[in-house]
């Protein structure tokens, strides 16, 4: 029963029922999530067993590769940083109702811009790194902004255009690392030249805190967590975030309330792109890779970051632990593959976990609707007046 039930005639009664309403289902979603996660883990073990592996050995390997020692933790955190940056950006655009799913390409464009600044501008000292990060954010933000422009000028669907722009971005980076005048590595003697850039100069690398055998926290992670906090505050506490939420929940009402719908939506898309671009710069400048621009360097971070945002339900702070979990799966997954378990199983496990987190709220909502006889609090309350409209 809800506050709008026609069965509650008196005002006081309705108020009482209304007070009860939100609390009756508060625990259901977490409970369902717990069950779903357990089911996903069970299913994953079964899969590993079926393909000839040992579930316990696999868990062991996952643990070994991601959390067993400082080296493993270091590698986990190196993956966590770009995942988190992408996810935080995805939160911003999803909140505005414009779904940017082209982060994979925006990561590459960010890396490309950072590499160009790092290798082609004769700057030394910490200014270089700052410029690299700025260039990455600007370039990828503009890249995502193109989709917003297409949407505004020609009505192109943002989901489609951001995704297709990913493939364009891949071609652009491939071109850049194949052209000596652009970013291809310099020929040394007679050695064959690969489609990649020169390594970044030392001043263009993100430093780490901590000594080699111990835990190393890369600057990228600090950047990512900082971005998560900043975006979380901006979204939930500022008038800007208020308008962004309004836009995402009801664009018409937002426009009615005087929100500059196009400008705000475009800004949200550009910010999400800029954060993905920062992730690209972090991939390039942190010891997660080889510090060279390579066509394959995005490593699906863009796609996985989207999943992080999905599981975190577009809440930037919730994305922090989720990104960590995905970092664990990534670095542990690499180790797992080395023990003979097919590495694609890690992707299956990841997918199952995403489903386990995403599905329960929907299932609970559906079950609630069915139980209340198809009547929900919101739009359905118009059920009675509909009879009048039918006469018209």
């Amino acid at each position: 029963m809800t506050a709008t039930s026609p069965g509650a005639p008196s005002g006081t009664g309705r108020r009482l029922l209304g007070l009860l309403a939100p609390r009756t289902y508060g625990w259901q979603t977490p409970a369902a999530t717990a069950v779903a996660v357990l089911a996903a883990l069970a299913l994953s073990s079964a899969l590993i067993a079926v393909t000839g592996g040992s579930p316990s050995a696999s868990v062991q390997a996952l643990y070994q590769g991601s959390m067993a020692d400082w080296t493993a933790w270091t590698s986990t955190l190196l993956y966590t940083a770009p995942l988190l940056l992408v996810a935080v950006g995805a939160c911003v655009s999803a909140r505005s109702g414009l779904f940017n799913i082209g982060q994979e390409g925006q990561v590459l464009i960010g890396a490309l811009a950072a590499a160009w600044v790092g290798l082609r501008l004769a700057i030394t000292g910490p200014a270089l790194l700052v410029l690299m990060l700025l260039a990455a954010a600007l370039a990828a933000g503009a890249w995502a902004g193109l989709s917003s422009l297409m949407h505004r000028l020609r009505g192109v669907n943002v989901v489609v255009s951001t995704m297709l722009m990913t493939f364009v971005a891949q071609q652009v980076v491939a071109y850049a690392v194949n052209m000596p005048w652009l970013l291809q590595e310099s020929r040394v003697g007679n050695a064959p030249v690969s489609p990649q850039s020169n390594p970044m100069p030392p001043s263009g690398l993100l430093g780490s805190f901590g000594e080699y055998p111990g835990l190393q926290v890369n600057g990228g992670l600090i950047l990512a967590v900082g971005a998560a906090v900043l975006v979380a505050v901006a979204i939930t506490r500022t008038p800007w975030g208020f308008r962004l939420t309004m836009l995402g929940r009801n664009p018409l009402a937002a426009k009615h309330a005087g929100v500059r719908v196009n400008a705000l939506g475009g800004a949200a898309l550009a910010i999400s792109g800029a954060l993905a671009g920062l992730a690209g710069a972090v991939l390039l400048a942190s010891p997660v890779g080889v510090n060279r621009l390579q066509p394959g360097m995005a490593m699906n971070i863009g796609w996985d970051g989207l999943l992080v945002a999905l599981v975190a339900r577009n809440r930037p702070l919730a994305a922090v632990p989720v990104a960590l979990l995905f970092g664990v799966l990534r670095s542990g997954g690499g180790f797992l593959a080395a023990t003979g378990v097919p590495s694609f199983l890690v992707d299956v496990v990841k997918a199952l976990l995403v489903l386990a987190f995403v599905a329960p709220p929907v299932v609970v909502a559906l079950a609630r609707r069915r139980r209340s006889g198809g009547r929900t609090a919101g739009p359905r309350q118009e059920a009675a007046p509909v009879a009048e409209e039918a006469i018209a």
Partner: protein
Amino acid sequence: MRTVDERARELTPPSTPALRLRGISKRYGPVVASDDVDLDVEHGEIHGLLGENGAGKSTLMKILLGLVQRDSGTIMRGDTPVDVHNPQAAVALGIGMVHQHFSLIDALTVWENVILGDTGRIDRAAACRQVEEVSRRYGLPIDPAARVDRLSAGERQRVELIKCLRRDPSVLILDEPTSVLTQAESAELFTVLRHVVRAENRAVILISHKLAEITAATDRVTVLRKGRVVFHSATRDTTPPELARWMVGRDVSLRAEGAALGMLPVDGAPPAGTAPAETASPGTPPSEDTPPTEPPAEPPAEPAAAPAPPAVAAAPGVPSGGAATEIVPALRLSGLTVTTDGVTVLSDLSLDVAPGEIVGLYGVEGNGQSTLGDLLSGLLLPASGTVELAGRPVELERPGALHRAGLGIIPEDRHSSGVVLDMSVAENLVMKSVGDVSGRGFVSRRKMHAVARRLAAEFNIVAPSLDAPVRSLSGGNQQRVVLARELSAGPCVLVAAQPTHGLDVGAIEDMYRRLREAASGGVAVLLISTELEEVMALASRIAVISSGRITGVLPTAEATAERLGMLVGGVAA
């Protein structure tokens, strides 16, 4: 397929009606949509069905088409009683309908739309041939290969007609067919209908609220009111004023006299000190502890734009008659024209509303009211014309300009543009004034809640909590949220579009009281409504809108059924 001639021969009189309805009744809960309706439609005639919104025209037709099942009564085709269980049965009986809102798929071509729903193999050439054949026979020129989204409204209507005529119906029903057509297109349509009736002896039922159309195009006319047949005549034996009277009803003039005597009944101050929550129950308008005539305690700082209400409150509350022109009107619409898809939705619309006055904009649904509402919500721009608030023109292209200039609006569809269902009551209440509850770049939850608590108490908003999503509120309370937000900004103009649509009796009374209070506090109120009773009860002047233009403005005292009916029907009275 039988040729038309064979078909026509088959249909020529035995002089029994093509369609005979006896005692058709249908109720939806307490609402009687159709009350013991008898209707005879002859071969070879255009039968007009006239009535206001909610008179039961559409329900009757839905029963005929098998979309709605009747509670009682008989439908006869010729002399045999028939049952129309579903639309397929209606088609088999030769009943075809052209709907008011087109049922075409934009992305498909004309011939694809026409054969939609057919079974069997798709034969493009045959389908195109058929479209061309039908279009030649009835003089409905159309390119079968054209995509529907490239067509004008008139051309789309042609496609609908072809779609319907192709099935060779003996009874053709048209529901408000000219509502989206230009004058020329309407004339064309009626020529085609004449042909269909005269040459092929089909029966046509024309549903309309436009008097001119009914008198010009029909042979006989039936007037429905509140689900009943109230009048029936051969068209040549009646006159538009008579039809108008029947359509709007006799009791209206009584109400008008009442309204004239009492003018604007402003509620006296309710007993002070009553706790709002305990007395709130549907049926009795909830009382409140603030005197009703007081403008919102602390109007949020909107220094430049919003003229303060008290300044105009001193003006004489209600100008008697129509002499509102001596004061600067709070709201002046001049020459507003809006065109969509080549059809003029608003045509040179001008209207003034003085401070402290309630003007009712009355008309049958779909005559441009929602477009005007959207325009005043800042959702669309006029092709020409201006909106002036307190004498100053508003730059409509700037987002939020109307709000800043002091216009509050209760939009027609609160779910689509009035509230954000998934945001909290508090957030919805401060939606248009986030800046006022923020300091140093952050939204202050404390300030937001303080404002929300004050408004919720003042406007009697019953909510589980201020943090509950607006979705969890009843319709009446959602509407109070909108009203509270709009009035709290201290507007000089309040536009209320269908403000009581879908509300229960208690909430309606509450809304009426609030609107009267707003007006007596000096706010100019423009009430857009399709409910005549509502307009008569609240407004001191009634402007009638028909086909996007104001056909007349009457003081409520002079608004008789006949004059209103004529105006609603698009005939100047």
